[in-house]
């Protein structure tokens, strides 16, 4: 715009106020919905965080103090734990990129065989709780008794195998848990990409390979960057796998360090102080994302989608196929194999022979004298509810951020993202404290799970819906208004149907991560509000891995089933996850 800048002439205050009021009155339903959504999200996120800050700023006797922060930051090992967390999260991000990008490109843009199978398999990797992946990998790559190391020793005579009890081992487990995030984000972006860019590159003489890789990947860079930040932050906030592997390998991550502050004796105020720096990483991530995606234009869902022609990469398709299969074998098949195998044994550790096989571990899921049927019910209800609440809230908030010029949108974006990497266990303290007294005495009820999980997982829905809205041309919505539909009608009749695939993807992601959520549930659950991960955790704690494995298999099956149902409802073409 080659406009002339004027010093903004201040309009009389009462006129401005009148104008704003008139806007609000004219679109009163929109105003109510938006105020409600912002209020709910603000409350969900800021209230527990405020409690944690407050907790971190007071001594045990209630006096205001900075001592907790001083204690935490002078605590020996905190700095090294932080360094470990950064190194491991960075390693996980890089490894995830190396794994996920070729697979996503191959699945989206090439003639590689087995694409649908690979998409489904990667989803399984995603829904597997990372503490389960960790246990599976301990059974697979324990230095002495890990199945892989035994195999290597007995067949190839490799004396000293690779140990999962190491930083590398932790990176491996986290990578196998989180690479699907990059895979799905980049595959979806590539699917939506205008293929003419690639064709142009080919016209310019690039080979099909080079053209597609060299042109497509930079074009979907915003998706790659934002999902990489996701992986980094998820790895920062992960607890299950670091706890299972870190101790054994004599190192701490920030989350295991924070966890230690919760016990012997519990020092919640220190834990609160220790958790707050993670917010800095979230802010950094947001800034990075903004920098990386700020100037690029997103692909727009136009009225006429172009069907991308798959790139024929000759022998390369088999190389990529083999690579994808190897990744899936390691990240899905092996852990799943270990889980299923264990779940069928009458007692884990027994040899896998006929007389040791049983279905009793699965039968227990229907045994009403145990917590299991209730846990399954709770898990389904909480996950589906949380996913639904998150998606609806995200739709309104994203609209507000992407489609209006209201001041404070950057702040709102921050609020919508801040809980992402926040360690669940620390956040849970805020919820326990914040919801213990009337009128908010929800601690001990299942309702607090909805509230806490929504607050913790909202960023997922927010990001996915936001990507969808960014790709949606505003004119489609404006056409609705011009046809005479109110804002609300347009949202329901035009935006929602067009954003279906993005919203479904968001719903799935939140459902899957909530289904496996453990770190918050550990503090929030009381008798009667157990979820499946809690049941798994208890079984592991109890040493009955066979039961833990059976519940895990069912949890994974439920995730797959829900994806299948969603696909059926949405129509295959609409679902790219």
């Amino acid at each position, binding site marked *: 715009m080659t406009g002339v800048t004027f010093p903004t002439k201040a309009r009389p205050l009462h006129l401005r106020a009148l104008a704003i009021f008139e806007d609000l009155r004219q679109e009163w339903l929109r105003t109510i919905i938006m105020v409600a959504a912002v209020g709910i999200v603000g409350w969900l996120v800021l209230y527990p965080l405020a*409690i944690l800050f407050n907790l971190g700023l007071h001594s045990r006797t209630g006096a205001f103090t900075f001592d907790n922060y001083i204690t935490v930051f002078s605590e020996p090992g905190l700095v090294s734990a932080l360094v470990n967390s950064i190194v491991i999260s960075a390693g996980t991000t890089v490894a995830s990129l190396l794994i996920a990008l070729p697979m996503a490109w191959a699945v989206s843009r090439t003639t590689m065989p087995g694409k649908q199978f690979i998409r489904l398999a990667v989803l399984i990797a995603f829904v597997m709780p990372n503490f389960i992946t960790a246990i599976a990998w301990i059974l697979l790559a*324990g230095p002495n008794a890990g199945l892989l190391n035994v195999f290597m020793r007995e067949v190839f005579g490799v004396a000293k195998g690779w140990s999962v009890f190491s930083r590398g081992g932790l990176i491996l487990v986290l990578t196998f848990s989180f690479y699907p995030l990059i895979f799905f984000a980049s595959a979806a972006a590539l699917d939506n990409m205008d293929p003419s860019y690639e064709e142009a590159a080919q016209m310019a003489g690039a080979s099909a390979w080079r053209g597609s890789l060299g042109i497509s990947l930079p074009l979907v860079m915003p998706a790659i960057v934002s999902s990489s930040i996701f992986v980094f932050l998820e790895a920062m906030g992960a607890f299950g796998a670091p706890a299972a592997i870190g101790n054994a390998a004599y190192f701490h991550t920030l989350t295991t360090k924070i966890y230690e502050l919760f016990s*012997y004796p*519990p020092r919640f105020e220190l834990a609160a102080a220790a958790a707050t720096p993670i917010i800095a990483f979230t802010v950094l991530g947001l800034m990075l994302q903004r920098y990386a995606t700020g100037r690029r234009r997103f692909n727009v869902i136009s009225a006429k989608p172009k069907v991308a022609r798959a790139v024929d990469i000759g022998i390369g398709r088999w190389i990529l196929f083999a690579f994808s299969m190897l990744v899936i074998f390691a990240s899905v098949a092996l852990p799943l194999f270990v889980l299923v195998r264990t779940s069928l044994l009458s007692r884990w550790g*027994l040899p896998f022979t006929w007389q040791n096989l049983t279905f009793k571990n699965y039968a227990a899921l229907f045994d009403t004298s145990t917590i299991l049927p209730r846990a399954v019910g709770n898990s389904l209800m909480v996950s589906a509810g949380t996913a639904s609440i998150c998606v609806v809230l995200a739709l309104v908030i994203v609209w507000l951020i992407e489609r209006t010029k209201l001041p404070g949108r950057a702040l709102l974006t921050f609020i919508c993202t801040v809980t992402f990497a926040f360690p669940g266990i620390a956040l849970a303290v805020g919820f326990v404290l914040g919801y213990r*007294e009337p009128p908010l005495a929800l601690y001990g009820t299942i309702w607090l799970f909805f509230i806490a999980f929504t607050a913790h997982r909202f960023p997922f829905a927010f990001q996915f819906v936001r990507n969808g809205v960014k790709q949606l041309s505003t004119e489609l919505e404006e056409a609705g208004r011009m046809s005479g539909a109110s804002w609300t009608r347009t949202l329901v009749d035009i935006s929602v149907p067009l954003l279906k695939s993005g919203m479904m993807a968001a719903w799935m992601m939140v459902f899957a991560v909530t289904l496996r959520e453990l770190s918050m549930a550990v*503090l929030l659950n009381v008798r009667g509000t157990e979820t499946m991960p809690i049941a798994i955790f*208890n079984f592991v704690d*109890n*040493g009955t891995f066979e039961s833990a494995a059976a519940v895990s298999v069912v949890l994974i099956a439920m995730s797959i089933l829900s994806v299948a149902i969603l696909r059926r409802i949405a129509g295959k073409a609409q679902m790219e996850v």
Partner: protein
Amino acid sequence: MRHRLGTLLLGILTLPIGLTHEALAQATVPTMDELYQAAKAEGAVDFGGAVKEDAAQELLQAFSKKYPGIKVSYTRRSTEPMVQLIEADRLANKVSFDLINLTEPADMVRYKTEGFVQPVPLPDRDVLLPGTYDPDNYYYALGITPMYGIYNTASLKKAEAPTSLKALVSDPKWIGKVAISRPSRGGTGAAALLNVVDAVGVDFLKNVKERDILLTRGNEAAVSSVISGERPVSWGVSGYRALEAKAAGSPIELIYWDEGTAIAQFMGAVPTKANHPNAGKLLLRWLMTKEGQELHVKAADFYSPRKDVELAPRNEPPLSKLKINLFGNDRLLKTGQELSSEFDKAVGLK
């Protein structure tokens, strides 16, 4: 709100100190029948502890039979998650349990000083082994268990298995062969470590990192590591878990150390603000009777702190035949914690 929590904490801290001794001197111990009537009026009892689920159910069924009309429930957590659960409850000003059961002496002592648990005088306290109860009656060991060494029978023949702690922590052949529950994560692990230090001297901690000991989260994971063969030996795991695993057919065998085997205690106490305090007291006192203890031994694979219960779990020798090292809570609390902390420092976890 934080302020209110603070005053609450202060109140709790100051209250019991004045009460402790005089209150006890004057307190008359109610009969079981009086307690039962009061408990029946409360109608329910919620037990939370580390005892295995099926064992706890067995015990509670027997209790229900003897004292009908009280609805029983049980929530199982090992000590670390149990303490978290209790602490979350406390943050929320709630009490979930009428009887709690923990292995961590530090937490029990803290709960006593903070007034979170209340004294429950026993009429026949004299029959208990010294050191297995709080002199002020705030907590009692519901069961005691040896921290057996265990080894994997598939990896080691009986003759190859270690018998001396000294050899285990100094002989190079055991480097990279030992798994234990990380001592700073619970009282049982600390007791086992204390036992090792008593046997071989504190200097071994200096080079403990080179021993390449696998540290697990909790006893069960240590037992699991030995069962899977990941590490063929442990210097001490909770006995009841080892016995249960062995009985279930897992390839492990117990080791009674030449230097003596540590004893860990599983302490029970009744929270001051329990929802059903009388029912909690009734359950605790019944569990501490000879009848309750014999059942506890049979169901939960524990030894009994009662001198008049000769019964041993799973046909193991009676306690009197074993070379055991029973540490009082004071020593466990002070030295045990210090050593655990030293251990963490030595391996780089602190």
